[in-house]
């Protein structure tokens, strides 16, 4: 790719990189940092981008590495809401009756592949991730987007395994509800 074309492609990618970095880090300044590092690395490493994959896939791969570096460097102070995870989560508890049965039957999601092939679906997914409380969003993204093993996620963030499991559970339940209401409930049937 021509240097100038790459410049422009990276500039166009910047907003979506920022959105994802913010989702993971929940901190604007850190997101700015990792995205800048990513764009610089992409410019310096463009010889390694053979055009065999989508440029976005390549750059997002760099972003993931930069975010993992960020965590390794210790930029991981956890916000105060993580500490309060011992308490209940009303949004999740509301899904069940006192006897443990679900209040409502989850919907069939139709053809998930059809959803995953639409860019609009990912807008809804990101909006749902934004709505997760910061601490839940962060652990869930580390697990499912950065694909770090759960014990390592807990260790990185200094959370006990039990607490970590509870947070993953709450994040998954909240996200599932949000996707069902805002995407599959509308489009999946």
């Amino acid at each position, binding site marked *: 790719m021509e240097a100038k074309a790459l410049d422009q492609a990276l500039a166009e990618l910047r907003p979506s990189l920022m959105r994802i970095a913010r989702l993971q880090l929940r901190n604007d300044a850190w997101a700015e940092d990792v995205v800048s590092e990513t764009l610089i690395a992409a410019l310096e490493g463009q010889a390694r981008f053979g055009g065999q994959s989508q440029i976005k896939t390549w750059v997002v791969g760099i972003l993931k590495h930069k975010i993992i570096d960020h965590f390794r460097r210790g930029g991981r102070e956890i916000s105060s809401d993580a500490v309060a995870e011992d308490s209940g989560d009303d949004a999740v508890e509301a899904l069940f009756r006192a006897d443990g049965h*679900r209040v409502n039957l989850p919907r069939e999601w139709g053809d998930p592949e059809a959803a995953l092939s639409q860019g609009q679906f990912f807008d809804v997914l990101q909006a749902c991730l934004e709505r997760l409380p910061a601490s839940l969003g962060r652990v869930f993204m580390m697990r499912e987007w950065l694909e770090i093993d759960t014990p390592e996620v807990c260790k990185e963030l200094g959370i006990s395994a039990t607490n970590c499991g509870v947070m993953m559970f709450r994040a998954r339940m909240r996200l599932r509800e949000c996707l069902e209401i805002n995407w599959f409930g509308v489009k999946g049937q």
Partner: protein
Amino acid sequence: MSKGWILIPCSHAHHLLSEQMDQPLSRGRRWRLWLHLRFCDACSRVERHLAVMRSAMRRMGS
């Protein structure tokens, strides 16, 4: 032994569904979940949804 040992409510099954996304379940838990899923549409759907969410998250941004 009470039947509660084998028959778990959906709330418990949901916890196990999440747990198995993170680590293999112990034999006892796997068996209780399997039994529950055989008879429960709600939890079977949630199991599929969690798998869809995982694929979606892995594709996000690329």
